[in-house]
């Protein structure tokens, strides 16, 4: 059951990113790439040969595996299919955040390792953004867990009434997800312009198979966050009895993720990229949203 979930997760993740690019192109009235483009990229990367810089040390080689494994472990913690208990009782929401930090830590180090200023710039900006995401994320976790009495992820995976505080928390989480998965207002995925890229700058030196692994990890992370937001806004109500319910359930699952993807795409198209030092205010806004969520949950809204 666990292996099934992992494989399914790995398969669906790139689809989500493809979906977002398709929606963006549709909104921009352009033909754009097919929805399966991320899969083609991954396959292409796996068969291209890899170039590694001579100044890089063993960290550069090990980093992709750690980033990939941290993303996978994170996906283990999130009860996508078996929703009343986590697959493995290994950690809770806070552990999830720290596991992502582990991946980011090694990615930043690998970026610094190559000795090019792009890598340094990328890792410095990534760290800057990440360190401002953390308090906001912690506030969101606090708001959510206040309702359910514990910071366990499965706590809010079951059926639960939609309250104002969970909606506000979801909104704050949405802003944070934009920052985490390097979407437009914070960081531009598609560009190679030094001034704007953050995540891309870190990954610039990678090629071939290790780049594939890192891209896959990024997709997984994106998938997890989208699932969390979806979980907050549209709680699942269906029991997993027989085959029909499973089919209905998976349809419902994809629909929710799609809604989030559309929202992200709309945001990406309409907003321009923020100046790096405005990011602090952007995430400050998310933090304040978190506090509002907490206040609502205290007042019992």
């Amino acid at each position, binding site marked *: 059951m666990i292996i099934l979930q992992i494989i399914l997760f790995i398969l669906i993740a790139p689809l989500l990113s493809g979906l977002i690019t398709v929606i963006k192109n549709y909104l921009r009235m352009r033909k754009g790439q097919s929805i399966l483009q991320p899969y083609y990229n991954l396959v292409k990367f796996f068969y291209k040969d*890899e*170039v*590694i*810089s*001579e*100044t890089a*040390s*063993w*960290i550069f080689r090990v980093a*992709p*595996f*750690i980033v*990939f*494994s941290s993303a*996978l*472990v994170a996906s*283990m913690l999130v009860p996508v299919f078996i929703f009343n208990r986590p697959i*493995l*009782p*290994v*950690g809770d929401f*806070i*552990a999830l955040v*720290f596991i992502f*930090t*582990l991946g*980011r*830590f090694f990615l930043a*180090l690998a970026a*610094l390792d*190559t*000795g*090019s*200023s*792009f890598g*340094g710039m990328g*890792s*410095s900006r990534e*760290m*800057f953004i*990440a*360190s*401002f995401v*953390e308090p*906001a*994320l*912690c*506030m969101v*976790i606090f708001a959510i867990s206040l309702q359910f*009495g*514990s*910071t*366990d992820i499965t706590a809010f995976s079951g059926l639960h009434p939609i309250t104002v505080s969970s909606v506000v928390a979801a909104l704050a989480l949405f802003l944070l997800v934009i920052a985490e998965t390097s979407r437009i207002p914070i960081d531009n995925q598609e560009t190679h312009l030094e001034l704007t890229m953050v995540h891309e700058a870190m990954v610039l*030196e990678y090629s071939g*198979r290790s780049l594939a692994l890192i891209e896959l990890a990024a997709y997984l992370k994106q998938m997890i966050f989208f699932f969390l937001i979806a979980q907050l806004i549209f709680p699942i109500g269906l029991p997993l009895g027989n085959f029909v319910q499973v089919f209905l359930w998976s349809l419902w699952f994809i629909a929710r993720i799609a809604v989030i993807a559309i929202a992200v795409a709309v945001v990406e198209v309409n907003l321009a990229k923020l100046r790096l030092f405005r990011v*602090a205010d952007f995430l400050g806004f998310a*933090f304040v949203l978190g*506090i509002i969520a*907490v206040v609502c949950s*205290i007042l019992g809204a």
Partner: protein
Amino acid sequence: MLNLLIERFFLFDPLALFFLVVIFIISLPSFIYSFSYLKGEYPAFKIFSAQILLFVFVLSMAFVVSVSNCLVFLIFWEIMSLVSYFLVVFDTNNERSIKAGLVYIVMTHIGTAFIIAAFMILYNHAHSFDFIAIKNACSVMPQRTKDIVFLLFLIGFGTKAGIVPLHIWLPYAHPQAPSHISSIMSGVMIKTAIYGIIRFVIFILGINTSWWGILVLILATITSLVGIIYALMERDIKRLLAYSSVENIGIILSGVGLAMYFISLNLSYLAVFSLIAGLYHLINHAIFKGLLFLCAGSVYKATGTRDMEKLGGLIKKMPHTAVYFLLGAMAISALPPLNGFVSEWLTLQAFFLGAFNAIGGSKIFLGICAAMLALTSGLAVACFVKAFGIIFLAKPRSHYAESAKEAALPMRIGMLILAVFTVIFGLAAALVIKSLSGVSSSALGIDISNMSFFLNSLRFAPQIAKNTYLSTPLLALLLVLFSVIGFVIYRVFGNRRAVIYKTWDCGYYKLGPRNEYTATAFSKPFRIAFSFFLLPYRKTQKIRESFYHIKSFTYETHTTKVFKKYIYNPLFAFMLKLAKSMRKMQPGSIHLYLGYIFITLVLLIIFMERF
């Protein structure tokens, strides 16, 4: 008849034993480390005296932690600061270490003056200096004196621990001492101050008002934030580590503050739980900070400089030290499998559980403190990415870095021991928590027979919160498993070997060490974001060959030390001004001196009735 005599000399309760363990875990590797560290630079006599001083230093700390009489505690407390002063001023011919020693010893002495005052007030009520006698007397003490004694203890031990307004000596003193000494000082000596707070405030004074806990929490949060922001801006490795010790003291104190807050609300389970978090972070910090200082020491010995901007690419020349520093950096930034993550998780969990069970306003207060703690850990990750990346990765930036060679064997053994400890304390978290629950229950005086802190040897979970688990061994296993899977995928699909080639240099200019990101550059976004606090100074200058052609561009920036500039310097200047005005009292003329005598006589006679 006032008895100053010492009925009971030692008090070996679990709290003292725990601190003894902390002291010896760090001093042993540092002692091994010191053999080769001192060999090159100092004459034989000095090395011998350094070893003796080290021995006396560790012994005095052991006594401080285990003694049960205030007077003897005071004696060993001051011997500890005296010996550490000699160690800070160890290489006597550079001016900075003398100034550092001066600032250090004066601050600790002022702190001790506060502690003496607190002991005396306690002595007044208990008529004995023994801890147990004082503890019994404290129950009957009026609340007002208890508050005064608490504040005196807080200031006294705060100076030694490095709580924010009193922390200025720490970034001076720790870098100047020889590295194995600063690892003990940073790892263990400031912890004796935390021992003092726990022993005297929680154990002896007893807590029955909640504002104590809140005050400690606020101070702890500010300390950790200020500590990490300054650590981010640092270029000197050991000063960076010293500031990060200030930050970690903040985290430990938030654990202790939470415990004090919960006792006053008599949520006994939570109090024990948060004290466990505090103590756990205390021993973790002792271990990985000791490890980091030892690595910084071996980097300093290999390259001869502590300035990060001049280092780089050391991972190729010093692989062992690099691995140990990486382990230390991962532990301090609370990355999952290692011990920093466990204690940070516990502290955050303590905050959240506290918020669930607390009422109204304090929910938000605890939430915000938790968020600040998260911000601190985020900044800590950034700080140690910068530290590790700039020192060890990419190309060496100066001849110092090129001439580096791996540390000698004893140094590596010292570092290895501490590295192994970080891993052990990370994985065997459940067992450590079991023993810590004993320690904290004895400190708080709460029996924990009916409380359970852990499920089984692998996983631990707070009893109150429904099914929130954490099992670091399993996490580590999964991480390793999946990275192996990733490696298998990597090996299976790809068929050709990787090609080694130059880093991407946009195709036309040769990449040199000058292109690499420097420490100042790395911390520039943070400097801008926190400019309201750091008040950065920035000067750029273009040196022009002619109007159009710029030959070179100089960029100079530094941050102002707010506390030093706005609190300590004016205070010191005022004292000197007062003293100078007093100097005019003795201008040298004998007539004036005779005048003094006659005036005092006349005044005494006139005001005779007043006496």
